Every structure is written in structure tokens, then in C-alpha cells.
């Protein structure tokens, strides 16, 4: 059981969280965006081995946040609310 720090609630069990995707995956708007950009946004992932910046949601409080963690050691490096507040 991993412990993730919700910036709002503090450390909680991993089972309370849901993975939301790569952080910084900006959505291109419009019916005419080139299909490559749309496919990039919709499907392509960096999926790094090592440090990852990801969006997570703490389902208990409903808040989304950015978490930096190591996908090999599972060490959590930082956790920041979308508004910029850091986890305690």
C-alpha cells in the first residue's frame, strides 16, 4: 500500500486515489486541430521509467493535483494542488 500526499488532506492510502494522466498534457481545441495534435493529446503518453509528473485525483475530497513520483522506487517526490499549494 503506497501512501500519497493529497495537498488538501495529507497522506492517504493509494486506494483513495485515481490516476489522471500526464501532467501538462494540454488539450488542443477545435474541430480542425491537426489529427496528429489530437492523437498526441488523446493517446500518446511519456510513461517515464523514473521520475514522472502526473495528475491524480483524491477521490475522497475530489481534488485533482500534480504529483511527482518515481515509477520504479515508488518514492513520492512532491504533490501540488492545481492552484499551486504544496502538500504539507
Amino acid at each position, binding site marked *: 500500500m503506497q501512501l500519497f500526499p493529497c495537498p488538501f488532506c495529507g497522506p492517504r492510502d493509494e*486506494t483513495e486515489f485515481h*490516476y489522471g494522466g500526464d501532467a501538462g498534457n494540454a488539450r488542443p481545441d477545435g474541430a480542425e486541430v491537426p489529427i496528429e495534435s489530437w492523437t498526441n493529446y488523446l*493517446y*500518446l503518453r*511519456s*510513461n517515464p521509467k523514473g521520475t*514522472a509528473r*502526473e495528475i491524480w485525483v483524491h477521490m475522497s475530497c475530489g481534488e485533482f493535483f500534480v504529483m511527482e513520483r518515481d*515509477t520504479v522506487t*515508488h518514492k513520492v517526490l512532491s504533490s501540488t494542488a492545481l492552484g499551486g499549494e504544496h502538500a504539507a
Partner: protein
Amino acid sequence: MTRRYSALSLFKEGLAGQTGWKQAWRSPEPKPTYDAIIIGGGGHGLATAYYLAKNHGITRVAVLEKGWIGGGNTGRNTTVVRSNYYYPESVELYGLAHRLYEGLSKDLNYNVMLSQRGMVNLCHSTAEMEIGARTVNAMQLNGIDAELFSSEDVRRVAPIYNFSPDARFPVFGGIWQGRAGTARHDAVAWGYARAASRLGVDIIQNCEITDFIVEGGRCRGVQTTRGAIRAERIGMAVAGHSSVLATKAGFRLPINSYALQACVSEPVKPILDTVVLSPGCGVYVSQSDKGEIVIGGGLDRVPSYAQRGNLPKLETVIAGLLEMFPIFGQLKLMRQWAGIVDVVPDSSPIIGPSPLPNLFLNCGWGTGGFKAIPSGGTLLANLLATGKHNDISRPFDLDRFASGRLIDEAAGSGIAH
């Protein structure tokens, strides 16, 4: 020296103290160049090498494996083999694999212990029975030996299932494939390795690809922990590590890597004869020829490259198992492990050229690529030999994400892999 495997050779070797056997595969030093390089010594990589040599006569081939062959998901999976898929494209792909599996032991002269004791996918409600019917009908139209089971049929093949009226997930029936079953995972890897090696393929272990050699915009070889190795055709079949290599090659893939867990109980005398999957309980289970109850469930919730089991998933999977088979409440867990699987949005594999010319992909098998090893190898071999898709691999090209023509079994049948 004994080369061929048979009851007779085993008997003769028995008289000679089993001392005459040769290496199952050779371990040569890597050569500086090959006609084709295959990255990843899992089932798919080794099968690719074998079919390159066998089907296309290309034998100046190296399989480069960072650890020991078969040590990735091929050696960690729960070995379910089936071909009852919903979409015709999937049926072509997995059907080919299933047919090849049926002849594989003889083809490789290695007993891979394909055990076709059937598999039932349970339906727990009227709604699931309706989807079950939709699925079975589609499969039958695709020429697959699928049957729609009633709850009585399920009782026949899995009498120890929880048929109590207050079961959390009562059985309304199920989807049955009689030709489905299991095979011995290690034997698949070793059998392909041995057969490929005998055809001249170099199998190089402890050789990690650290980078690609790119010249003139094309891939011309790889940098490895055992030096640079060049080739004009390079295939990669590295499962959960596909994104890692893709990053080195300068592109991204529609893949997230997750740990998929499995576990086994202590070995017991035969008690479960078929593979049983309960979507409600989130578990599939079979009994190995050694007697262990082999238990699999869904993905962990956290993307990961840490190849190990964790507790929360184990707890829910075991709870599901005991709901299915309450008498397994007597058993003990003996071993728990995980493999890193390559999960694609539509849960179908990616087979085809990569964005880097000369580099070809075989990945995205996620939780279900063991059953496809013979076809995955055949298709990647064809791509490496000809540079072109055939009809079976074409639909699985990376370009389907742009065209929108995904092949999502879960979307169609509610059943993923």
C-alpha cells in the same frame, strides 16, 4: 550427443545418466552486424527470431535480451490461451496464434504443454447474459468454437463454484471456449529459443539496449551494454518497457505501464479442471499441472515499473477468489509476483513500423499477449523480412489511433484480455 527430444532419446539418456544433452540454445558473443536484430528475449522476441529463420530463411539474426530470456512477462503470466474474440481483426490475430499453439510442441520439438481444458467467462446477470449472447454470436460468425453456457453447463465444468443462492455474483451462465486452456510459459520461451538457435539465430542475454544508432534519419543499429550492434532491420518486443525504448528512439507510444499481479496457492491434488473467469469477482483462475491454484486479477491502480506485487490488489483479488470458490478458504498463498505490462487505450497490440524508419514494433499486449506469442512472432518476422504489413497485422498498426479505428474488445464485448 542428443539433439532431438523424444521419449526414446530420454530413455537412452536415462541409461547414460542424462549426460549427452546439448545446450538448449547457444550463448555466442554478439557479432558486430546482423541482418536483423530483435530487442527483447520474451516470447514475442524469440518467436520472431524463429519465424524469421523458418518462414523467411533469414538466419543472421540476434535476439538481444537485457536479462535472461523469458524473464519478463512471458515468464510471469498466468498462461491463459484462448481465441474467443469479438472483432474479426482480433479473431484473425489470436486465431492464428491458437492454431500455431496447437501444433507448437511438434513444430518446436519442445513440449509446451498446451492444455486445452476449456475456459468459461461467467455471466452474473441477465444483462451480462445478453452481452454474452452478443459475444458468442459474434465469435461463432467469426468461426470460433464459442458456446453460450447455461448455469447448469457451468456447474458441469466447475462444480466447486459458489452456486449458493446468496452468492454475491450468482451464475446465470457463461461464455465457453473448449479449445481454450493454458500452456507452460517457460517452455514457450525456451522452446522458441532452442528452435531458433538451431536455425542459426544468436541469442544474447545480459545485453541491454541503451540507445539506437540513427543515421540519415533511419535506425541502423543499437548501442548495448555489450557494445554496438548494427542491422538494417530492428524489431522491438519489450512489453512494459516499450515506452522506455521509444523515448530513446525519439517518439512516444499510446502506452502506460502497469504492474499486473498474479499469485499461486500451495499445490493441491486436482480440484479445478478448467479456467474460470468471473468479471464480477474480478478474478480468473486455473490449476496448474503442478497442482497450484493460479490466480490472476486486474491491474494495479498506480502506473509502475516496479516489478512486484502489492497488498491492496492482492486482498481484493483473493476476496473475489473466495467468493467464487469458498472451499479455497482452506488454502494458503505460496507466492505472489507481478509483471510490467504495456497497457494501450483499446487493449489491442501495436504491430507495425514505428515512427523511426527501420524500427518495427510489437507491443501493447498488456495483460493478454502470452496467447498471441506465435502470431506476434509470425507478424513481426513478416514485417522485418518484407518491410510490409500483411492483412492480419495491418489493422494493428500504430496509425489506428489517428484514424480512430481502434479495436477495443472491451468496448464491443465487455471483456478485455
